[in-house]
């Protein structure tokens, strides 16, 4: 093998990579927090909500879960301006990730809610809790605890999936890698560096989700 590895470009391009990490992190944070919140609301609507909401939320979930993320992103960024909705690339990327994670996490959280024993709802009612209080304290928290590992994985998937937002000129970590590759023609080096950074980010995110779970669900309830 005669290829000479060369990582000297790191000296010139590291600010680009740092910016890329910051943007990928920002997208994941906003997408994760707002997306999971949307997922909780949708899961409530689909499992326990009023009759008219169920088909509406169901249609949203099926639409998003059965179409590619890239198409959803292109539709928001390139398509919506035709209807007068002009979103910048960062807003479009954030919105696409929120909508996407909202649909997937809805189904994960709904599974947790539907696995709640009937008696638990009745226990809440017998303690004179309102339906909202019952949902909040008796149903949601144990449900989230039950599906926390699956939800954590979904957030990591969304973080990794955010790589495609470079297609609409969002300067995330993948954009930085592509940019460096197109300037230095050091494909192996540019992509191995970004691969390792993504790997580190994914491991960090999983640990953070685990820590957050330990904080929110301190009692290890017997199931």
């Amino acid at each position, binding site marked *: 093998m005669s290829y000479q590895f060369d990582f000297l470009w790191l000296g010139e391009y590291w600010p680009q990579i740092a910016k890329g990490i910051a943007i990928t992190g920002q997208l994941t944070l906003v997408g994760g927090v707002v997306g999971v919140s949307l997922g909780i609301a949708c899961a409530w609507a689909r499992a326990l909500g009023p009759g008219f909401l169920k088909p509406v939320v169901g249609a949203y979930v099926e639409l998003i879960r059965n179409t590619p993320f890239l198409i959803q992103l292109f539709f928001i960024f390139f398509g919506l301006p035709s209807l007068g909705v002009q979103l910048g690339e960062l807003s479009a990327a954030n919105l696409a990730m929120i909508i996407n994670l909202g649909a997937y996490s809805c189904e994960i959280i709904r599974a947790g809610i539907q696995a709640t024993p009937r008696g638990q709802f009745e226990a809440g009612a017998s303690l004179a809790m309102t339906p909202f209080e019952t949902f909040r304290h008796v149903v949601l928290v144990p449900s989230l605890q039950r599906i926390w590992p699956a939800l954590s994985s979904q957030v990591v998937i969304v973080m990794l999936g955010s790589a495609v937002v470079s*297609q*609409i000129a969002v300067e995330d970590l993948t954009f930085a890698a592509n940019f460096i590759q197109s300037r230095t023609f050091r494909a192996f080096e540019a992509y191995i560096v970004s691969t390792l950074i993504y790997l580190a980010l994914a491991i960090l995110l999983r640990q953070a989700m685990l820590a957050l779970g330990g904080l929110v669900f301190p009692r290890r309830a017997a199931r």
Partner: protein
Amino acid sequence: MLTRRLFVAAAALAASLGFAGVSHADALADITARGTLRVAVPQDFPPFGSVGADMTPQGYDIDMAKMIAEKMGVKVELVPVTSANRIPYLQTNKVDLVISSLGKNAEREKVIDFSTAYAPFFNGVFGPADLALSKAEDLKGKTVAVTRGSVEDLELTKIAPSDATIKRYEDNNGTISAFLSGQVEVVATGNVVAAAILAKNPPKRPEMKFLIKNSPCYIGLNKNEAALLEKVNAVVAAAKADGSLNAIAKKWLGQDLPKDL
């Protein structure tokens, strides 16, 4: 297509073998005697040369070849070539002229001669007609779309003011879509790409604002063919003067010929 190409190649080979014994004759005299002008044209590079819906070659270069043959009073024989083999086709006397969106550079000038320029080929900044923009400094505070890693990306990165925002898209489609959907005000690209947008009659028309890099197309011919070169230059000059070249430019590129061509 393949059989046609083989036939053409075989015919060219036969022709060159036939001429092998003759000492180097005057190419213009050969063309007149033969009654056909053999022209190397692209078939994979619209709008300069491509295969139309009726399977016949069409494009700027094809129209150019037909016009020159007509003005010389001979029939035209189109020889499809690729960008890699167009100069060898000329050097081995398989064609008389190369009209194949050929740019001029020092290496090529060592081996072949060039006519005057017949087609514009440039990278520039394009924007809506009502936008005042005539030089790189005017990009101040504006957002411009480019295709990442392209010539215009590299050049514009050097000359754009620091408060201009350059949005780099993955490919020409992304760059075009960003302009057409109003995500960016201006777009830096090749005139051929701009022509492809104009051909679709878009709601936003990309008008030429200023030039980034100019590399017009020339007709290539063999060295030491002064008579042929003179004839070709005369035809090109006449076509520029009477507006027929401008008509070809309007037809295939959607814009008038630049004044300085």
